[in-house]
C-alpha cells in the first residue's frame, strides 16, 4: 500500500508545537501535512496530561492539555492541514528539489521543507522488562490490536488495568477461545461502563480475572505458551495462553529521527535560533526536540520557535515573493486567510 502526497511542508509531530506551526506557516501561504504516531493531535498534552491544567500559556490563565489541543485545532482549521495519524515517520531523504518523508504505513510525502516537531520522541507502547520478549513481539506478544481476527479462537492473556486493556477484553471475548485479564490490583482505572461490563463477564465466568504481577513468559520460537504470574505472597503460577496483549501505557522514544543525519546532541537536534533551521538546509526543528543555548522545554517556547521558523520557510517555499511583516489585527490579507471579517 503506497499513498503519495506532495505539499509545501511536512511536519513530523502533531504536539502543540507542530499544531501551531500549521498556523504560522498558513499565514505565510505554506501548506502542511502532519505525521504523528498517536491517533490524535496534542502530543504530550493529549497523551500524558489531558485533564491537568496548564497555567503558563500567555494570556490563558488556565487550560487543560486537552483544552489547549482543542483550541489549537480550532485556531488552525482555516488552513486545512492534512493529518496522518497512527503513522511513524521512519525515513527522510532529499530527492532533487524535494524532501521525501516516508512512514511505516507506506505513506510518502514530498515537500519543499521538513519541520521536525517530534517533542520527546514518538509515543510507543511500554515493553515489559522481560529478557527475550523481542523474540515474541508481533508473533504472539502484542501491544496493540491491528487485526482483531488474529485473536480468533486464541487463549489470550490481556495485561493492564486501564481503558485499552478493558476495551480489548470486551472486544475480544466474543471471538477468543478464552480471555484472562491480568492486573496487579483489583481496581481499574477505566470508563465505569467498561469496568462493570468486565465484572459481569468475570461473574459469568466468561473472562478469568487474575490479580498479580507479570513475571515472565514461556514459549519458544516466538510462540508464547504461558505467562508466569506471581501473587502477593510471591507464589508463581503459569497461565497457559497462545497470545499476550500488554497495555502498560506509552513512553516517548526518539526512534528513527536519530538517523536523519541532523547532527544530534544526545536525543536533541541543535538549531540556529534565528530561524530554527538544523545543520541541514531546508530541515527545521522546533519544540522540545530542538536545543540551543538557553532552551526551555515549554509550550510557549515552541510557539515562538514556530513563528521564526515560518518566516524562513516562506523564503524556501515562495522564493519569488518578497517577505512582508504583518499583524493579524490589521492585515486584510491575513484576515482573508483566517476567514474573519475585514
Amino acid at each position: 500500500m503506497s499513498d503519495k502526497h506532495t505539499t509545501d511542508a511536512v511536519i513530523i509531530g502533531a504536539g502543540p508545537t507542530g499544531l501551531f506551526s500549521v498556523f504560522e506557516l498558513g499565514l505565510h501561504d505554506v501548506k502542511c501535512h502532519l505525521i504523528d504516531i498517536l491517533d490524535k493531535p496534542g502530543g504530550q498534552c493529549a497523551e500524558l496530561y489531558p485533564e491537568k491544567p496548564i497555567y503558563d500559556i500567555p494570556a490563558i490563565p488556565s487550560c487543560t492539555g486537552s483544552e489547549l489541543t482543542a483550541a489549537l485545532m480550532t485556531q488552525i482549521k482555516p488552513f486545512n492541514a492534512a493529518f496522518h495519524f497512527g503513522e511513524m515517520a521512519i525515513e527522510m531523504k532529499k530527492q532533487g528539489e524535494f524532501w521525501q518523508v516516508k512512514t511505516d504505513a507506506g505513506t510518502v510525502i514530498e515537500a519543499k521543507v521538513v519541520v521536525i516537531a517530534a517533542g520527546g520522541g514518538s509515543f510507543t507502547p511500554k515493553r515489559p522488562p522481560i529478557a527475550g520478549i523481542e523474540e515474541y513481539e508481533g508473533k504472539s506478544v502484542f501491544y496493540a490490536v491491528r487485526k482483531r481476527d488474529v485473536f480468533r479462537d486464541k487463549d489470550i492473556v490481556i495485561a493492564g488495568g486501564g481503558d485499552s486493556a478493558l476495551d480489548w477484553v470486551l472486544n475480544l471475548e466474543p471471538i477468543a477461545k478464552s480471555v484472562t485479564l491480568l492486573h496487579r490490583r483489583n481496581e481499574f482505572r477505566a470508563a465505569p461502563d467498561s469496568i462493570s461490563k468486565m465484572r459481569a463477564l468475570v461473574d459469568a465466568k466468561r473472562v478469568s480475572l487474575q490479580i498479580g504481577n507479570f513475571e515472565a513468559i514461556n514459549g519458544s520460537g516466538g510462540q508464547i505458551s504461558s505467562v508466569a504470574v506471581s501473587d502477593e505472597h510471591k507464589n508463581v503460577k503459569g497461565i497457559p495462553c497462545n497470545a499476550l496483549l500488554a497495555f502498560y501505557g506509552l513512553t516517548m522514544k526518539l526512534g528513527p529521527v536519530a538517523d536523519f543525519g541532523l547532527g544530534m546532541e544526545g536525543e536533541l537536534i541543535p538549531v540556529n535560533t534565528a530561524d530554527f533551521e538544523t545543520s541541514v538546509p531546508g530541515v527545521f526543528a522546533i519544540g522540545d526536540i530542538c536545543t540551543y543555548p538557553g532552551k526551555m522545554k515549554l509550550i510557549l517556547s515552541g510557539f515562538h520557535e514556530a513563528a521564526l521558523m515560518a518566516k524562513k520557510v516562506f523564503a524556501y517555499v515562495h522564493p519569488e515573493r518578497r517577505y512582508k511583516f504583518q499583524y493579524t489585527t490589521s492585515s486584510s490579507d491575513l484576515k482573508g486567510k483566517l476567514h474573519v471579517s475585514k
Partner: protein
Amino acid sequence: MKIYVTDMSGNTHELEATEDWSVMEIIREGGIPILAQCGGSCACATCHVYVDKEWKDKITPPDEEEIAMLDGAFDVTEDSRLACCITFTEELDGLRVSLAAGSV
C-alpha cells in the same frame, strides 16, 4: 542531608538532598539517570523506585493518583513508589531507595 540511591547495576550512590524537593528531583539533579518523562507530574510512571522497608513508615503513603499511575509501571511491589511523589523532608535524611526497571 543525604539520600542513598541504588541503581540498576546494584551500585549505591550518596546524594545531597534538598528539603522540599521530590526524591525524583534529588536523583535527577544528583546526576543519576532516571527517565522521569513527565518531569514530576505523576503522569508517566517512569520514576518508579523501591523504598527500603525501614523507611516506609516515615514517608507519607501514596495517594490514589499515585497508586493508579503505578499501574503503568512494571514489577510493582508493596515497596513501590513514584519518586516524584515523595517530598524530601528533614525526617527523611538518610532515605534509601532503589531504581526499578522502566525508570532508566
